Every structure is written in structure tokens, then in C-alpha cells.
């Protein structure tokens, strides 16, 4: 396909599609700095002079600072725990020999077809009994459960590319399992581990279902939760609403732009391998 003669129309079509795809985000960001009064009057005009005040007001009245801190805390904790658990598990499944390895592999991956959504009621019940409602560590635990299986799946793909001979040789030389893991496997699989970390971070940052059910008091709201309330509370002030949406859109977009290579690599590796 590449390099062969291509008709011009495809380039034109791609340009149009790219504009269509970009439009919703650009429109939101533009409206975030457009005075509320102009949103009805002039949807196509440039937002000039920019109403920067929208952003600050949205930040304060929507308590977005607290929500961002909560989301960062939950995301950080989820990524850390998921990485430790899935790196250790993938290591055992690919480069160690636990008894019944094939069965264990299926067992670890089975949750991929059992979404946590269908278990949200019993999980809520359990979390309530354990006093984990409105608890950020509790929400992190929920996200760990939702993410460990696919994280392990992707990591096994990367770990398999590390030659078993290298691992065996190190073991014969007297290196322990943990030493091999930390000195050989982790450094060699660093791109894979980074990819998994970015994926888990974005999925956790964006999670809505879990926090909607497990978080009730506004102090513990994450960004998606704060945002969903925000648009209801300030429905009459569109400038403010768009500012709130813009604040929620920007962090994952920035993370993606900076780390897009490992992001895409992780996803394609995970999807193509099966």
C-alpha cells in the first residue's frame, strides 16, 4: 500500500476527517475562554479577548483543585500497586516455573471477560462493610482489580522477549529470583513497563463507574465525578462549564502527547498479541 501511486482524493478526505476529529476538543477549549454571553451569539468567532477569568472561577467554584489532587493520589497509588503485582505475576508466569503454569495463566487472564461493572453491586456491598466508601485507597483498590489482568497480559508479552538463557545463566551464577527480576528482567522490559504504567494511569484517571458508586462525599470527588456534578450545578453558566471541562480534558491529553510512543506501543502490543 505504501509508496504506491495514490489518488489525491484520499489526502483531501483525510484533511477533512482530521478537522472533524479535532473540532470537538478545539471547540471546548475555545468556549472555555469565551465570555458566557457570546456562546449563543457567536459560536464561530474567535474567543477574543479571551475570558481567562472563566478558568479561575471554574477552578474555585467547582473545587477542581481538590478533585485533581484526589485523582492524582488515586492514580499514583493504583499505578504503583498494579505494577508491583503484575510485574511479579508476569515474571512468575513467563520466566519461572510455578506448578500448573498454563492453568494459572488462564486463571489470571479470565477476568478480562468478566468486567468489574457486573460486580459493582457486590463490590459496593463489600466495600461498605469494610468502611471503604469515600476512601481514596479503597477507590485505588477497585482500580487495581479492574486493571491487573490486562497489565499482566501485556507484560507477559514483553517478558517473553527476554531470552530464557540469560535468566538461566544468571540463576546458575547464583543470582536469586528477585535479583534476576530487578537486575535483568525489569531493565530489559522497561519500555513495556512504562507503557503499562501510562495505560493504567489514563484508565484510572478517567474511571467514572467506580468512583460514581464508591465515592459520595464531595471532599473525595475525583475529576470525572466533580465534572459530572459541575455541569449540573452550573448548567446556566456555559462559560464556567466549558472551563471546567477544559481543565478535565487537558491533563490526560498532555500525558498522551508526551508519552504517546509508549502509549501506542503498549496498546498495539496488547491487542495484537492475542
Amino acid at each position, binding site marked *: 500500500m505504501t509508496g504506491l501511486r*495514490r489518488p489525491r482524493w484520499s489526502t483531501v478526505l483525510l484533511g477533512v476527517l482530521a478537522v472533524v476529529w479535532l473540532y470537538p476538543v478545539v471547540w471546548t477549549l475555545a468556549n472555555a475562554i469565551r465570555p458566557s454571553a457570546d456562546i449563543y451569539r457567536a459560536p464561530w468567532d474567535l474567543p477574543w479577548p479571551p475570558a481567562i477569568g472563566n478558568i479561575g472561577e471554574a477552578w474555585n467554584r467547582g473545587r477542581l483543585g481538590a478533585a485533581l489532587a484526589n485523582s492524582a493520589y488515586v492514580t499514583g497509588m493504583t499505578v504503583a500497586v498494579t505494577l508491583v503485582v503484575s510485574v511479579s505475576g508476569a515474571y512468575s508466569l513467563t520466566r519461572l516455573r510455578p506448578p500448573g503454569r498454563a492453568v494459572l495463566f488462564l486463571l489470571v487472564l479470565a477476568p478480562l471477560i468478566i468486567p468489574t461493572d457486573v460486580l*459493582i453491586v457486590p463490590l459496593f456491598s463489600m466495600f461498605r462493610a469494610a468502611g471503604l466508601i469515600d476512601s481514596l485507597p479503597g477507590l485505588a483498590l477497585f482500580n487495581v482489580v479492574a486493571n491487573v489482568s490486562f497489565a499482566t497480559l501485556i507484560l507477559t508479552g514483553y517478558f517473553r522477549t527476554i531470552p530464557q538463557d540469560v535468566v538461566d545463566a544468571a540463576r546458575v551464577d547464583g543470582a536469586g529470583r528477585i535479583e534476576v527480576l530487578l537486575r535483568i528482567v525489569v531493565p530489559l522490559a522497561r519500555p513495556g513497563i512504562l507503557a503499562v504504567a501510562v495505560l493504567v494511569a489514563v484508565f484510572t484517571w478517567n474511571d467514572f463507574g467506580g468512583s460514581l458508586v464508591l465515592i459520595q462525599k464531595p471532599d473525595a470527588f475525583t475529576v470525572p465525578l466533580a465534572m459530572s456534578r459541575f455541569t449540573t450545578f452550573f448548567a446556566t453558566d456555559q462559560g464556567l462549564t466549558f472551563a471546567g471541562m477544559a481543565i478535565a480534558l487537558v491533563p490526560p491529553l498532555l500525558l498522551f502527547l508526551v508519552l504517546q510512543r509508549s502509549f501506542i506501543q503498549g496498546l498495539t502490543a496488547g491487542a495484537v498479541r492475542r
Partner: protein
Amino acid sequence: MALLHGSRRERAIDLLFLLPILLILAGFLLYPLGYGIVLSLHDTRGFELTSFAGLDHYAHAILGDAVFHRSLLNTFLFTGAAVVLLPGVGLFLAVLVSGVNGGRAFLRIVFFAPFVLAAVAVGEVWKFLYAPFFGVAATVGTALGFHAQSVAPLADPNTALWAIMVAFVWRFAGFNMIVYLAAIQALPREYYEHAVLEGAGRFERFRRITWPLLWPHTFTLVLLTTLGTLRIFDMVWVMTEGGPSHATETVGTYIYVTAFRYLQVGYAQAMAMILLFLILLLTVVEYRFFNRRATQVSS
């Protein structure tokens, strides 16, 4: 060499590394699954079990609940459309993007970016795009001669579900494109050169080479789309909460409302178990169907 071949004790230590994930899955997946089955067989007050109800909840859901039927229909319509549209649009974009020489990296980012945005953010943005008066749908609609007030896709029961689908495609087509694009770029070039020598046109080359060779990827994407769409909750909830008058009610939103608004917990869980059953069933069916096609293609 006993170390490598592994005595029983050595292999038990190997298992220790797997213990954390096994414990998490046992405690927070297997146990809730069992408890979920118990819940679905009981009447409840709040989240406490009161009396054994047998299969009553299941019978009521399957035989007597018109809203549940509507939600099932919507979920299947939505999933059916998504299974065709997400890989379809993704493949279309991938073929187009793989054909350009400049700006491929930029196009990849543009089409893929919506995937990293939160479902809530995407839902809210599109809700405003669809809003009467100042939304884009209204602006375009007015320009085409419709009354500004009447252009509100999410408020019309006939269009609401498909309005959400447009946002859904916008969000996920890029992911499908990325997977196809990586695969297309790995396809052996000689096939195409050979086909060109034999005088095969662009479409013929796609039909004879690209499409069959991408079959495993299509399988993966169809499966991932099915798994991800049958459970859809967040975007629908943000955009319509299942309305107007259940026109966009999915099994996911109905379970949520039933459990956390009406507090009919046992009944909600029975519906969740039905959904889980359907997910497992469709996964097996698709797996078999695609496996058969895959062996046909390769032979």
C-alpha cells in the same frame, strides 16, 4: 541443575510471585462473583439479604420487565453497530493514513487522542455539541433550514441512541485505527508489488491481500469492542441517563438505577448476572466463528 528443573520446594517459591495477583483476583473478583450469585437469588432491604427468592428475580427480568427488555434491545443494537463501525471506521482511517507520505505521525495523534479522554469529558463535550441553540448540531441544522429549537438529537427518542453512537465512534475509532495501522505497516510489501504487476487495482489489492491478512486483528478488535460495549454505562449515563423515556437505557444504566436509586439490589444483581452470561456467551460464539474463518483463510 536441580535449581533449574525445579524441585517441589523451588516451584512453590516460583508460585509465591504469583500470589499477590491470585489473592486480589480471588478476593475482589471470585468472591464478589459468588456473593453476586447469592444476592441475585435473594430479596433485599437496602444491601442486606432478607429472604430467599429463588429464581424470581431472573424470571421477572426475563418475562415481566419491559424496561429491561428495552435495555437489552438497546444494548444489542448499540453493540451490533459498534462492532461494525469501530473496526470499520478504524480500518478505513488506517488504510488512508498508511497511504500518505507526510504527516502520518500527526494524523495518528489526531485520530487517537479522543481515546485518552475520560468518558465523562467526551460525554459532556458531545452533550454540548448536541445542545439546542448554540450546539454545533443546532447551528448546522439551522443553516439547513430546521428550526433551532427542534434540532436536539439527544432529546429525541428516535435519534438519541445513535447520537451517542457518533460520540462513541469518535472516541474509539482511533484505537482501532492504531491497531490496524501497526498491522498494515508490517504486511509484506512483495504481495502488493506482485499484485500490481498482475494488474490488480487498489480495491482488488485491499480485498485480496489486506483484508484477509488483517483477519486476526479484526477478530481481536471485534472481540474487544463486544466486551467493551455490552457493559456500556459511563458515556450513556453522562449524556442521557438512559432517557428520554428509556430510549437510550442500556443494561448497564438500568442496573445502576435499579441498585443505587431504587435500592432493588437483588434484582439489579440478577440483571447483572444475565448480562455477564450474555457477555460470556457472545465471547464464545465470536471466538468459534472467527476461529473457523481463520482456518478457512489460512488453508
